[in-house]
């Protein structure tokens, strides 16, 4: 179901634009360690953005800052040049690495985010969402009794039930088998095709190759590269990215083969 687009702005009819999304000199430290070091980044609407980097590079933190879960110590996050307000916040959704499911049935989890609809609308929308996620057969099953793959599909389906303009995904397939990973990737691809901006954190290079239009590569709390996916995989510019793609531990100041 494609969102109706305004011919002039390219955004949903009657809704003000929220892109580009800008992180402006964003900094965050904890325990004396600089976790985000004056990061500046601009994300536009149409592309699927994949954030990559080694453990501790600041990927998930950057995503949380963009989504508004963490307030940066310095800098700002701007949506179409202005700080986020309640409306902008309501047009975002996030899927976490560990599916954060309520102690309810699968359908109960979906209905939880459809509180703005009346009962019959919420029920029919829930059926539709679960069917699209391939979860109709387990609609009444307690969410926590679902398999890991089903749980993550439910978490993605619940996020998409919000019809977000931007969907943040923090390693959603980290503990999933290949089939479940493919199912989640299909949901992400479908969401992208219906106009939802995708921002995904992953360690899975194969997944990044399959999904990414552009790569943001982070190292040591900074953005080492922000480039088109093909360009990144064909010829990474930074030593950190080269080491990462080659499966080598990156030590700043040292490059293998030198």
């Amino acid at each position, binding site marked *: 179901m494609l969102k109706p687009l305004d011919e002039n702005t390219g955004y949903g009819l009657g809704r003000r634009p929220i892109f580009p999304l800008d992180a402006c000199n964003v900094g965050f430290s904890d325990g004396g360690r600089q976790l985000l070091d004056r990061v500046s980044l601009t994300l536009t609407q149409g592309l699927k953005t994949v954030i990559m980097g080694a453990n501790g590079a600041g990927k998930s933190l950057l995503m949380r800052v963009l989504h508004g879960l963490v307030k940066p110590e310095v800098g700002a996050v701007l949506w179409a040049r202005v700080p986020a307000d*309640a409306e902008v*916040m309501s047009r975002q959704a*996030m899927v976490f690495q560990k599916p*954060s499911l309520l102690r309810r049935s699968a359908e109960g989890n979906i209905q939880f985010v459809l509180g703005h609809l009346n009962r019959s609308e919420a029920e029919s929308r829930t059926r539709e969402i679960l069917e699209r996620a391939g979860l109709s057969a387990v609609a009444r099953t307690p969410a926590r009794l679902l398999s890991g793959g089903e749980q993550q599909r439910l978490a993605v389906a619940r996020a998409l039930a919000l019809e977000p303009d931007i969907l943040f995904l923090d390693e959603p397939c980290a503990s999933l088998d290949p089939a479940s990973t493919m199912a989640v990737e299909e949901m992400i691809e479908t969401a992208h095709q219906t106009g939802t901006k995708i921002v995904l954190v992953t360690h899975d290079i194969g997944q990044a190759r399959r999904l990414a239009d552009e790569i943001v590569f982070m190292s040591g709390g900074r953005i080492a590269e922000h480039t088109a996916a093909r360009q990144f995989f064909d010829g990474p510019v930074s030593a950190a990215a080269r080491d990462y793609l080659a499966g080598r531990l990156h030590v700043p100041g040292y490059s293998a083969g030198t």
Partner: protein
Amino acid sequence: MTDPASIFLLAMGLVTSGNPELYGIIWLSLRVSLTAVAISCLIGLPLGAALAVVTFPGRGAVIAVLNAFMGLPPVVVGLVVYLLLSRSGPFGVLGLLYTPTAMIIAQALLVTPLIAALARQSLADLHLEYDELFRSLRLGATDKIAALIWDGRYSLSTVALAGFGRAIAEVGAVIIVGGNIEHVTRVMTTAIALETSKGDLALALALGLILVGLAVAVNVAVLSLNRAAKRLAYA
């Protein structure tokens, strides 16, 4: 008659005979304690959930006071309610002293801090689990509290049963504000105290057996509820 075996047999006879006096006392005890626990849940569960969710200056102190009030001595609560409801007290005009309503008020005051404190502990863990999701969904405090109470309903049932256990077993508060008046405010615990002092050990023991039976039933209910909740992955 001081032979324990014959007292026990007499007590069992009373329990099985359907003695109207005995069952009148049991009925009043249940009515008072269940009503008090219902009121305490209405106040204590949202209060506990709010303390689990909302942060404000002095929250730690409020929690410390609430935890301390879990062990409120029933006689002190009884005394406070007595002072409030006595003829010269601020609510004396209502004429509630020595009525079941006064006993309900006293037990509700006794049990509310217990229910609020246990609910807070239980829901704080659940809130930790849901925190990022709630913040991502930009839920307000009221929505968070409602979701936590609903999703934590099984563990909160255990909390309510713990409150009922405290209410039904206490004697100090109800004897002060109820007065232990026959057919009006006499409940199991006050009757046991009176009958023991009068030497009617059979009736006291019969009531004691029923109290113990209720305590066992409450514990079995708690255990079954927890098992069911775990089986359904809702706990």
